[in-house]
């Protein structure tokens, strides 16, 4: 039997060489490095984090909240007292913005994360069982894609959903409805991806070793689609934020007294001329939010895609060295 504790000098030297030479780089380090190489993506991440922090702690910086009406300043443009001005009702816009951004980010994150989770479970199940189960589940999926989401949202949040509306805040209702209609595309993608993973040699090897199928799915399939899921989360978040804004804008999403970016934009559209700050401030914030996510997405794709060509240029580095 080999003595496991024996130290082989050659091995140690080899080990040292590998450490020093930077030959072996952890995957996470490569991903981080590739992400950081994309300056746009880093900027996007910074903006997104800043907005998130703002939406949670921004309230402390201002004495006003979204309920308090300032009777002396109604419909006033930005001033020292009200940083972003006040609404037609005399509510501080800054306070409204903090609240609205938070709701919008919340909706985006929850819908983005949960829909990808649903998609992963649904897609993996389809691929794993195959056959009849796959066909039926695929049919349900296709049926959901065919359904006009707009109508359902309209019905659920206004006329038909009275019972629901009494028990749930409107943002929660919107999250649920958005969730129902947001996971199908990803699920189909994950299904096809896991199906091709099932054909990979390492899955076959596990099968030939007699490993039960359930364990194969859990240990081999799910971790291997992880990077795709990360990408899909950011895409889902953007989609959900935009959907919230759109639905609220046409008046079927978030309902007053709840505030969101969409609600704010909607309220201001009719009086862009008279209260321009009421329109432009939420619009810019929304744009920053979705824009930062889009910027990040590109960097994440670069970072996670194994076939990515993001290795930088030899010329640049050579030039630096020559200097």
């Amino acid at each position: 039997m080999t003595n496991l504790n024996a130290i082989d000098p050659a091995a140690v030297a080899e080990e040292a060489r590998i450490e020093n030479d930077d030959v072996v780089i952890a995957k996470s380090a490569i991903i981080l490095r590739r992400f950081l190489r994309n300056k746009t993506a880093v900027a996007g991440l910074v903006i997104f984090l800043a907005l998130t922090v703002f939406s949670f702690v921004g309230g402390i910086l201002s004495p006003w909240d979204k309920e308090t009406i300032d009777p002396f300043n109604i419909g006033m443009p930005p001033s020292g007292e009200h940083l972003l001005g006040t609404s037609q009702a005399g509510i501080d816009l800054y306070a409204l913005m903090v609240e609205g951004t938070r709701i919008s980010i919340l909706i985006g994150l929850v819908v983005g994360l949960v829909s990808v989770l649903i998609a992963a479970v649904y897609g993996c199940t389809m691929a794993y069982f195959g056959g009849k189960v796959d066909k039926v589940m695929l049919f349900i999926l296709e049926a959901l894609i065919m359904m006009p989401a707009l109508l359902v949202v309209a019905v659920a949040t206004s006329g038909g959903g009275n019972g629901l509306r009494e028990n749930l805040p409107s943002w929660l209702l919107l999250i649920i409805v958005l969730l129902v209609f947001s996971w199908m595309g990803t699920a189909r993608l994950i299904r096809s991806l896991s199906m091709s993973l099932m054909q990979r040699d390492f899955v076959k090897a596990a099968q030939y070793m007699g490993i039960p199928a359930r364990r194969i799915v859990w240990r081999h399939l799910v971790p291997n689609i992880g990077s795709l899921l990360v990408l899909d989360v950011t895409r889902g978040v953007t989609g959900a934020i935009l959907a919230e804004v759109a639905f609220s804008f046409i008046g079927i999403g978030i309902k007053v007294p709840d505030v969101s970016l969409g609600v704010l934009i909607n309220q201001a559209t009719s009086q862009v001329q008279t209260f321009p700050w009421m329109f432009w401030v939420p619009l810019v914030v929304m744009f920053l939010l979705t824009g930062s996510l889009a910027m990040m997405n590109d960097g994440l794709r670069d970072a996670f895609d194994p076939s990515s060509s993001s290795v930088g240029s030899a010329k640049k580095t050579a030039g630096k060295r020559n200097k």
Partner: protein
Amino acid sequence: MSRETTAGAEMTAERLHVAGLHAAGDGAAGAVLSVRDLNVRFNSENGVVHAVRGVDFDLLPGKTLGIVGESGSGKSVTSLAIMGLLPTTAEISGSVKLNGKELLGLSDKAMCRYRGNDIAMVFQDPLSSLTPVYTVGHQIIEALTVHHPKMSNQAKEARAVELLGMVGIPSPKDRLKAFPHEFSGGMRQRVMIAIAIANNPRVLIADEPTTALDVTIQAQVLEVLHTAQEETGAAVVMITHDLGVVAGMADDIMVMYAGKPVETGSVDDIYYSPRMPYTMGLLGAVPRVDIAEKASLVPIEGIPPNLIHEPTGCSFAPRCPLVSDACLKGEPELWPVSGPRGAGSGMAGSGAHKAACIKTDSLGAEVDVHEIFHAPAVPVSRFDAVPRLERRKVLELRDVRKHFPLLKGSLIKRRIGTVKAVDGLSFDIREGECFSIVGESGCGKTTTLLEIMEFHKDQDGEVTIGGLSNKAASDARTKTAMRKELQMVFQDPTGALDPRFTVFEVLSEPLENAGLDKPAIRKRIMELMELVGLQPDHVNRFPNQFSGGQRQRIGIARALAVNPKLVVLDEPVSALDVSVQAGVINLLDKLRAELGLSYLMVAHDLSVVRHISNRVAVMYLGKIVEIGDVDNVFDNPRHPYTRALLSAIPVPDPQLERTRERIILQGDLPSPLDAPKGCNFATRCPVFAALPAAKQEKCLTLEPPLEPVSSPQAAPATAATAAAATAAAAVRAARAAVQTADQQFACFFPDGELDADMLVVHDSP
């Protein structure tokens, strides 16, 4: 060795001398392509990689230069740099002159005037280098239009037809309108060659043109490439890792290692008196299909150096068995080799034999590679002494069939035919032997493996693993018992390992499944690592931190984890470099002897099969056409298909290659749909083609059964005696079916009844 002492001082002088020897003036006289001090750098995650470091060569018109080396040695990068096809992020320096005109530094647009016109390229993968949405005619004409905009449409079409005919595509006029998917891989590669030679290029660069193809097709394509060269008088740069492929074609060879040429010379110099240990190792690592004598292969340990750091000494030193302190002082330049076969003895116009090794002079032809590289002794299994029939059967297949229905129609599926992927296969494997299945792709090798690995009760035919039949495998317990006897090693070592598992997790998976406890698993994993020659402390690494050969070793360790009796090897070394391949083959050989394993191997590389196998079966369209002891089958092939396969294998021996007569099979594997009624092989059979019509009838209507060779092991050396011996054998066969030789074949008219000369396609048409 006076050179060693003044190496530094002489280096520059030597360099000038080298350039001067090659080049009169700036570009060599008459050289169509001359490359000087080509350097290419890329950026990577780890830093700047110096991928090509100072490549020099001159290519004379009509000559062929073979560039050989392991993957990552900079062969392809060199060719892409010449073509100007490297990404803009790469830094290229040096000089590439085509007919005296500098190509480096030209803009992409300026380069387009040369690309496809004066200098053309044939790529490795014919499946993806043609655009699927255009007809091949369109693509050939496109190549013509780009460089000859004034050519009339009729002229272009006529030229396209001529080109297709030149590369041997039957009825070229009709095929002009065919789409790439209507062609097989070999045919597509011919089309690629047709496109490349469309404008009569002065230089043709072929980057591994046959690597993706079957051996029989490879022989065809090499022939076409040769014809194309003769027709256009182009100089060819042939890039390959297969020393056999270039042996017959090239005039000069350049061996590359770590981005630098380490040995150059005429083909005879390189093959018969290599002076650089790396070249010697490469040559020793290739198994030979034409040699029965069993010797271990020469493994080159280690991996090529990391080109991020400039090597301080000889780049090969860390892997070289002859390394001394002097090797680590400065990288050696290419020095002319002195000696009987040195400068001047090469072909006219070719460069002198040069090697980048300070020990060149002490390495003559008389040095034994096996000794230098410490090739292990041939391992002997305890089963080798036991006669085959007395050993236990570990696997038996009886009349296994796998037919796929071919359906057509969108709503109501009609069965329009059957694909007989595996059609009545029977063989057995005994303890301690290696049984190989060979054949072209599409012959049913992989389906056979799947039938064995995915055994189930309702299979057509019987699979018996370790005494347990698939017919009895209804409960999970029996299935598990059968699975335990049988494990598999996959072709692609990267794909076979979950990228997110450490080696420890990879190896513990089957052990956990077998119900071992934690300490036992740890102990077993350490044993396994030792067994396959990996360092036990590497268990916590991920597969991507290992080289290809090491990954394959991990795959082998995983297969051995549960102590199987039979290991199924699906092309175990085809994804590996020659030097690494040798190590893995030696390991497999050793394990077979030490652990008493049996192997079922599927491979398309007949040299590997010859080296490792005891018995071999040749498959064609789902049927075994010849089966038997590997030496019997390879030395005395009886079925015309086996003969064709064997003759198509390139041998790393230039003189043999030049004189060898190839049986080149016409066409490709027929679609299984219209498989012939009688003998499957009749459509491509050279014997059949030469038969009188009366005898052809028999081939077309009757299916030849597998029959033993009943002559008392007549192993005739030449075709002439083969004819005599088989004629005699036929008489004797009628008298008594005494089977002495372990060889069976399925053909009515084995070679014996015809003059072998009739079947051979000679080089000169």
